[in-house]
């Protein structure tokens, strides 16, 4: 399935030091017919130049701010450029390009503003048991705090309509943005739908992914946010 030619669809990829894999990831998404917006989050390597060479629109953060900050930059830029649908996609190659169609299709089919990828409805290839346990715990925590009935809460693979994206304003620069995103989805009262996606873990993506210690940082970040205006 090719993207709807009548819709302006932007795939936002936040990347930090991903020069080794970014060309393949961007090229695959571009081959599918989508506009790729890569936010280079202050990489020290050739991530930005490599992505640009394979056809991505590139925005460079002057310093490393974190994935949440990069995604917010991408969402704001894509909205300004007239995006009708925005998809967030990981830079490390663990998301399947074919699943983008499913997410976008679900928005139209269910008249929803957010299509949230779920690896537990789809597939999680090579997911280590300890990581699975951590993700399940995070899911339960976020279900309680956001009030959303979801099966997977720390999945960066999602699609949103223009209306949905306008309701998102991520202030959590680092990994807590995933929970913050869902809290804002809940607060927006817009319709959301979960869509099965497959996440393929590789040694590379596992090395770059979240660690157990990050969970504590996420909890601190989320608590701190509630303490000040």
């Amino acid at each position, binding site marked *: 399935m090719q993207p709807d030619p009548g819709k302006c669809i932007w795939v936002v990829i936040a990347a930090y030091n991903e020069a080794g894999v970014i060309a393949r990831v961007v090229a695959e998404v571009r081959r599918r017919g989508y506009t790729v917006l890569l936010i280079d989050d202050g990489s020290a390597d050739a991530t930005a130049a490599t992505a640009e060479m394979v056809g991505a629109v590139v*925005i*460079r953060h002057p310093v490393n*701010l974190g994935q949440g900050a990069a995604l*917010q930059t991408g969402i704001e830029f894509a909205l300004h450029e007239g995006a009708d649908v925005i998809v967030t996609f990981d830079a490390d190659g663990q998301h399947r390009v074919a699943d983008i169609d499913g997410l976008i299709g679900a928005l139209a089919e269910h008249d929803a503003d957010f299509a949230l990828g779920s690896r537990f409805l789809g597939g999680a290839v090579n997911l280590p048991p300890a990581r699975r346990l951590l993700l399940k715990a995070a899911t339960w925590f976020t279900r309680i705090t956001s009030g959303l009935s979801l099966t997977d809460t720390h999945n960066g693979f999602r699609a949103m309509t223009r209306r949905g994206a306008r309701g998102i304003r991520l202030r959590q*620069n680092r990994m807590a943005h995933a929970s913050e995103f869902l809290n804002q989805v809940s607060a927006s009262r817009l319709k959301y739908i979960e869509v099965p996606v497959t996440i393929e873990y590789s040694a590379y993506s596992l090395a770059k992914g979240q660690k157990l210690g990050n969970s504590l940082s996420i909890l601190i970040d989320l608590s*701190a*946010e509630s*303490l*000040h205006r």
Partner: protein
Amino acid sequence: MIAQLILTILLTSILLYSWIEYRRAPVIGVLSMLAAFTGLYFVWVPDHASWLAALVGIGRGVDLMLYLWVVISLIVLLNLHLKLRAQMEVITVLARELAIANARSAASPK
């Protein structure tokens, strides 16, 4: 008496700080106000500090005051952390504006 006056000046300045911080971080403001008021009360009614210390198993009233001071310090530390976060948010907005402006100027025809 001199110690009481010095402590009163210090705790009053914390009260002032709490009042200023209340607008930005209500939880921090209320916590530090409570701690400072409690401190002021015990400075001027030390017998009650000794009574409360004995009640909660601390031992001496002066130890209770010391713990109270540690609590105030931790609250101030937490507030500093929150201020750093707020500054980071400002830096993020600036960096974002800069990044987007650079991307637009690079894309616009020369």
